[in-house]
């Protein structure tokens, strides 16, 4: 985003934050992110596109793990020929429980690690945590992180349209 000034606007309820986010258009401002202690679909749509990487990677990794562990069982059963109750070395029905369990295990691990990667976590320090406005809200407010050319007209507009909102101009390094 090629703009100079950043500001944080805090709203007491989701409705106001959603309306402000959608009305930013045409005001030479960009919504960089929105912060709320619970998911708000309208704000998600306003600040991010739809990304399907987590489910795609999860299912793909599950299938790959299933194939890999099934092949591992096949080769190790043949490599170490141990006959049990006259069953064939390639006893494929008996290989299914481990195949399914490992597939799901891998899908779970990949889902969690992909989530961390997509959210860029762990990230114990973030500029947001230094904001006085964020610190004072005790996790109760709904915040819009806005980037714009000139904060003054935007602040004026926000104060007029949403008088209960609180605003902090963020220092940009």
């Amino acid at each position, binding site marked *: 985003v090629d703009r100079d000034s950043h500001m944080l606007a805090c709203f007491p309820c989701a409705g106001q934050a959603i309306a402000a986010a959608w009305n930013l258009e045409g005001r030479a401002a960009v919504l960089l992110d929105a*912060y709320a202690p619970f998911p708000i679909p309208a704000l*998600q749509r306003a600040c991010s596109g739809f990304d399907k990487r987590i*489910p795609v990677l999860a299912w793909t990794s599950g299938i790959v793990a299933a194939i890999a562990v099934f092949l591992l069982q096949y080769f190790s059963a043949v490599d170490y020929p141990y006959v049990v109750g006259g069953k064939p070395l390639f006893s494929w029905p008996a290989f299914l429980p481990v195949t*399914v369990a490992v597939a799901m295990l891998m899908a779970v691990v990949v889902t969690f690690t992909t989530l961390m990667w997509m959210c860029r976590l762990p990230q*114990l320090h973030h500029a947001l945590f230094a904001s006085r406005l964020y610190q004072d809200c005790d996790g109760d407010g709904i915040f819009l992180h806005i980037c714009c050319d000139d904060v003054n007209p935007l602040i004026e507009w926000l104060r007029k349209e949403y008088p209960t909102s609180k605003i902090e101009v963020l220092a940009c390094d």
Partner: protein
Amino acid sequence: MHQERATWFPEGMDEPELTKKLCHTVDAANGLRWWLVAGISGGLSLLLLLGLAQVFGQGVGLLGINIPVAWGFPIVNTIWWIGIAHAGTLISAVLLLTRQPWRAAINRLAEAMAMFAIICAGIYPLLHLGRPWLAYYLLPYPDTMDLWPQWRSPLVWDFFAILCYLVFTSGFLYLSLLPDFALLRDRVRQRWRQLVYGVLALGWRHSQRHWHFYEQANRVFVILAAPVVVTVTGIISMDLSVSLVPGYHFTIFPPYFVAGALFSGFATVALLAVIIRYAYNLQGLITRRHLDYLGRMMLVFALVVDYAYGQEIFTAWYSAEPAYEQVYLDRWTGPYAPIWWSMIVCNVGLVQLLWFKTVRRSPVALALLALTSNVGMWLERFQIVFTSTHADFMPSAWDTVWPTAWDWMIFAGSLGLFVFLLLLFLRLAPVVSIHDMRSLYHRSEEASGGS
């Protein structure tokens, strides 16, 4: 007052008050009752450690594991604990998939219960191995002996099933806790607590981008939950049903075990919900309506379990196999008959009281029935493992075996460990998911046109 909000939240409670109330479960100082229960359960946990040390030092002979009941007490307890764990996961996941609003107040409790129950369940197979320090033999790794796991063995299936379930439950619980840890980080005042919650929250900042990915990951988890639960319980039941032992060798076992697991799990959630709502004064959030729904679920799965009992008896009779018929006659009239009949009283008789709405909505009655149901399910696991093997095909090997004092000590220890871990969890994290409740509040406000 809008109807949707009035259903799930006390009248007049706004969002900040809701958050404050839920955070209070963590912020409040430990009362005398907490210390008392923590002392008793901590003492029992120490007893578990003592028992484990003795058994590892002297051998599994202390446990009374012997032919013909080679699986004995440890496997009874494993199956029982795993059953409890599974329902926790399934309750949370299925209720989310089916968008049930009453999930928000109890999902954290169910997930935490699942986590600690699977820890208790995992202790026993290691114990039962006899030489737990060789447990890594179950892993498929290229060793110098060119030795691979025996893939046809249910013991190997168990290892992967329990590992899968442990990882799943940990991930699912932690995912749910992440936003609440972040909220607590932002609210607590003591520096050390800010640091602890700051590290636990991993830098989560409630960004809607985070929430977008969070919801995707959560959806994958809940879609995986049902197959994980069914597969893991199914694998545990196949430990028994793939053998030829009469009393074990039933094709009905996988669905029967899943239903039994859900029955005991719903019962445990109901019991914990009654205790927690009383202990933390959460009657306005975990309402009688929640208890009613939990009671209904208990009844549904109890009926499935009862059907499975009937089906087992029918199969034993219809197969015309003398060994199968003998197992049933022995269950009814043999040395373990009191166990069987007590199980019937708990799981078939008493549970019918749940047909009555007044019983389901009464915290005391529901808690008592949850307790008897859990006892009944434990007795069921006991009679499956003991009565099926103590008198099978070879009369020369028949014997009547009972658990030893060490068995009982370790079982009591695992109960203590479960309670102790739950108490520690209550000090660390909100027992009701804050972000789920706030989300429900927000949705109910939206549904009623906002206010």
